[in-house]
């Protein structure tokens, strides 16, 4: 067991960081915020920790603390700036933000080491430390999946107008989700820097966003365990056991993702849910859970599958 673990430690580390990163996208998404900004803060976390420890000689704990505080401040400001954007527009703006972070990482030589990156970052956290961070994050996410917070999140992502009409301060909730997402991204970055001991601009950017989102969706977008499952599948199993087919890894990942998207809307975590008898009882009473929307407005009315929740501004025009 211990030998097996230590032989796989590198892959496990990869899975842990991937899970943290996927969770960072998830916590935004479950409040209805399609944001990749956390991947940018992954860079902030990694470079910040790397700079403070490797270059400035700080200890990892104070460095990480300062970096998380910086992340909170920056992400709060960014949330204020992006407050008006939703859905694909927010996604687009945050993709641009991540790429700007990457460009900044390349250009800001004195802190980031430029294209060479930072190396010699002290490996202080270790696999156990990162696992603890992840466990804490997942526990918080699991606890907030149900109950009053869980209901509020569900309401937020399914119907913003209704949420605000029921007393939810939508903008404020989105900002909280945005900051929490950024903090998780930053923690992923801190972990990655500490585990790998190097961080370069190539560790950042578009492909990182893609892997985080893919791991999340394949693992299960709406379940707290989704990021963990996705991280393990993509960063561990596919890295370690694909073997002869590794040239086709992109094909395997892509095909797996499409299949899950089409046939398993709840991701691989949805498979476990099927085994939960409590769920079945509720399902028998009608469709529940999952990424559904508000129920159809008019009985028998056409549902094309693409009606948007009507933006508040438009409602008046249509009455």
């Amino acid at each position: 067991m211990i030998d097996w673990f230590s032989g796989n430690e590198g892959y496990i580390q990869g899975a842990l960081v991937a899970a943290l990163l996927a969770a960072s996208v998830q916590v935004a998404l479950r409040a209805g915020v399609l944001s990749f900004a956390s991947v940018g803060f992954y860079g902030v976390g990694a470079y910040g920790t790397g700079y403070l420890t490797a270059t400035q000689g700080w200890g990892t704990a104070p460095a990480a603390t300062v970096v998380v505080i910086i992340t909170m401040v920056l992400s709060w400001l960014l949330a204020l700036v992006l407050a008006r954007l939703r859905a694909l527009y927010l996604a687009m703006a945050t993709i641009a933000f991540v790429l700007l972070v990457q460009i900044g990482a390349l250009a800001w030589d004195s802190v980031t080491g430029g294209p060479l990156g930072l190396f010699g970052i002290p490996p202080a956290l270790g696999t156990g430390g990162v696992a603890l961070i992840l466990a804490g994050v997942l526990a918080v996410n699991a606890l907030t999946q149900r109950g009053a917070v869980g209901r509020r999140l569900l309401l937020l992502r399914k119907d913003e107008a209704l949420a605000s009409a029921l007393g939810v301060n939508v903008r404020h909730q989105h900002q909280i989700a945005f900051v929490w997402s950024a903090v998780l991204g930053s923690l992923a970055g801190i972990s990655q820097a500490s585990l790998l001991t190097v961080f370069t601009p190539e560790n950042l950017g578009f492909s990182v966003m893609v892997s985080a989102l893919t791991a999340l969706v394949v693992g299960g977008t709406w379940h707290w365990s989704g990021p963990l499952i996705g991280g393990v599948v993509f960063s561990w199993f596919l890295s370690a056991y694909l073997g002869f087919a590794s040239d086709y890894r992109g094909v395997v990942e892509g095909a797996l993702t499409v299949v899950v998207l089409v046939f398993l809307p709840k991701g691989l975590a949805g498979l476990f849910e099927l085994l939960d008898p409590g769920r079945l009882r509720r399902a028998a009473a009608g469709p529940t859970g999952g990424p559904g929307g508000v129920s159809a407005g008019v009985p028998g009315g056409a549902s094309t599958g693409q009606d948007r929740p009507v933006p508040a501004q438009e409602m008046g025009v249509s009455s």
Partner: protein
Amino acid sequence: MTAVLELRDIKVRFGGVKAVDGVSLALEPGHLHALVGPNGSGKTTVVNTMSRLVTPTDGQVFLGGQDVTAAGPHEVYRRGLARTFQGIRLVEGLTVRENVLLGVQELPTARSRAGRRRAAEAADEALERMDVHHVAQVAPAALPYGVQRRVEIARAVAGAPKILLLDEPVAGMSAGERQEISAVLGRLRDDGMTMLLIEHDLRFVLGLSDHLFVLNFGQLLAAGDPAATAALPAVQEAFLGRKHVPA
């Protein structure tokens, strides 16, 4: 007697379109008001302005005597303005009871442990009041349309609002279901709830409301006693749709 809710010279413009053009009205405590008008007359915009989903281009909104023109929708809800929407908007993935809990859980009074217990009690009470407590643990999508509508109203009244706005609650309903909702609204009025009912069917509100507002082309065409107002030639004309002469 101060109005529970008052609009003063509200104007709303979307791009170049004047959706609401200078509407003033006041809702009296304990009354069931009806706001009628043909499709496209701006009814929903008026309600959205009241519930603060739409910010008026011009004019003011008063709730309980206080200017709430700049407040957010969640703030007016916390101050006692609840509403329903034109389409059914129950959250899939939550049971009926959980949906109704949404109506109370964001209120400032629900913050403490004791507050949460009281909120749960209020939700259960609302379920009973709307006679949907027997389906509390059911997924709403499985229910008939009329029942879903009552669940929505339960959610809206669970937070003990001072005023309730209902946006076309009987649209698309069978005669039986209309009757059901009509009875529910009557009971709420008897309990002293101030309400504004938006409806495009003039006949439906005639027997039900205490006070009638008629909206056409974004302007208030007439207001007052339901039967007398409905009988006005301009109102008749607007509803029968012969000639439209903006007043």
